[in-house]
């Protein structure tokens, strides 16, 4: 008798658990959906400001950047993502100075660890929250970060941060 009892108890308990589950899914069926329609909502879509999309060399309105081509970022990068090209220039006072020629950044191999931006003595680098980075070849992921014709800002702020 006991086992017959158990047979039916198990059967109806099981059935009940199935119906409870079906009730939940039916409720969700009529709930508001959570899907975001991506390309349509592009205008409303705001990324969190700390999101690391890509590295940029900051430029001001006069097309000045703050990079003194010291190469600390290049040394610190664990993945060899950054390649700096610089040349020695002599300014009006006769002082020799390193000047940035090209700041190459390989977006495809970046770890987004922020060591470059954090160790930059000039705070010339930052990460921006852009996110539409898909391209068709890897070569297109290598960016030149200094804009054409940009020069070093006249008065660099010398302050080192180490975090």
């Amino acid at each position, binding site marked *: 008798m006991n086992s017959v009892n158990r047979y039916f108890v198990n059967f109806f308990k099981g059935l009940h658990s*199935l119906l409870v589950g079906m009730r939940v899914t039916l409720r969700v069926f009529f709930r508001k959906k959570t899907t975001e329609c991506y390309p349509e909502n592009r205008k409303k879509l705001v990324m969190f400001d*700390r999101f690391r999309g890509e590295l940029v060399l900051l430029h001001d309105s006069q097309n000045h950047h703050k990079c003194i081509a010291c190469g600390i970022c290049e040394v*610190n990068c664990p993945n060899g993502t950054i390649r700096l090209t610089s040349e020695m220039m002599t300014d009006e006072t006769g002082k020799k100075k390193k000047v940035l020629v090209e700041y190459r950044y390989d977006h495809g191999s970046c770890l987004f660890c922020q060591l470059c931006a954090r160790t930059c003595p000039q705070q010339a680098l930052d990460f921006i929250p852009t996110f539409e980075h898909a391209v068709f070849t890897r070569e297109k992921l290598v960016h030149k970060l200094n804009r054409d014709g940009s020069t070093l800002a006249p008065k660099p702020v010398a302050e080192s941060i180490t975090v």
Partner: protein
Amino acid sequence: MLTIDTMQVDHIVARFPGTRVEENGPWPTLVATPEEYRALALFLRDDDRTRFDFLACMTGVDRGGEELGVVLLLESTTLGHRVFVETSTRERERPVLPTVSDLWETANLNEREVYDYFGIRFAGHPDTRRLFLRNDWKGYPLRKDYDASEAVNPVPLESEESPDVTFSCREDGGEEPRALFDDGEYVVNIGPQHPATHGVLRFRVALEGEIVKKVDVHCGYIHRGIEKMCESLSYRQMLPLADRLDYLAAHQHRHALCLCIEEALQVEVTERVKYIRTIMDELNRLSSHLLFWSTLCMDLGALTAFFYGFRDREKVLDIMEETTGGRLIQHYNVIGGVSADIHLNLTRRIKEFIKYLPPMLKEYDQVFTGNVIARQRMEGIGVLSREDAISFGVTGPSGRASGWACDVRKRKPYGVYDKVEFDEIVYTEGDSYRRYLVRVKEIVESLRILEQLVDNIPAGDFAVKTKPVIKLPEGRYFKSVEGSRGEFGVYIESRGEKTPYRLKFRSTSFPLVSVVPRLARGSKIADLIAIGGTLDYIVPDVDR
């Protein structure tokens, strides 16, 4: 953490005259000769005063010069103390050390890893095959004299054959062939590309109809040599690699690495940092357990439930992303603190989430936990006994489901876990259903921890200043945290340089994978999936 006391050390040294004691780490190191090594290990495991039943971490080390050796970190689950045991051999051509794989089951795969990295064979080990690298790989990459040039190991253009024969190692280093699979066996590959292995893990499974007879684990499909890479990176540079081990416990793993380095540097972080780190750890655990729930449901065929879990996990990711800037890989901990102060919205969002989740958890229970099909597919399936859990080193929720109270947050509190109240969920049955339940209940406990912390974050700096160039003082360091799926430890051997001499991550998923053959034997294919799903291993953490 208790260390083994001097009287016991003296007692051991008296018994094993070749063994010497070094004090250059958080716990004493017993340096044994290869002849005494096995006897010492056996004594340490079985003696009533030591009872080291848990092999927490096994590391191969190239001592430089001539010596190759292994370092064991032993822990007693009953007495709570720890000790390092070390041995090494001067033979570099064909180094052989005695095996301890019959003393602790976890040593089985670990010794294969040591063989793979250093070429040390273990006499008596039943299965001397490479673990991560290809069988035709030349050289042993973690040896200091390893030639990494591509001329030695060109990029292979052919796929690797999986031999059905392995070798057990004899005392003299000779090989004894042993069949893995017979010719007549119906061998099926589960993985490396398989929806239920959660990554590129491969099981070769011998089947008899639906019944699993044997499982042979193949790892290494996502082996990146992170430990090798760390040997040439500065301590700051290696931090992002820690995030990439177990991508569902990125924050916790980086936490462990930072804690280990901070302890070595004797840097004291502020209370605020501890609070922030703990909050982020728990958020990370929430996201990991929610993902566990979702993927388990998917593995068992409940696809709708999968989406519910992901819907809610998205909210956790948003909370983390706003503060850390990363969703999966956060890069938030740094040596001495965290990389940025918490976002203004953090507390508000966490509070909203604490209110949001419990009704959803109720729905989870209705749609899956209580479901008769799900219950029958998990109950009594893949039973792991407490002894096996300890022997295999299965920590975390899976170990707790087997009755081993192994939560690092309780055993060796870090962060502010000693200040919050939460229950350690422990079951004794050890089956898949209990492994599942532990995680579901830990979601609730994580919410409880967050609730206690979120309003009480003290003021202070979010980071302390550290030197531009970090050099760890000479010695060995080990620090572990409770990751999302077990004890994650970082073992660093430093020789006072900018880079570590040897760095080993005690992976959380590695023991979980090593226990699959034991659990799956005799069960059905569908059970193998359920066992894998409830163990919840993450393959990049296995392969490192």
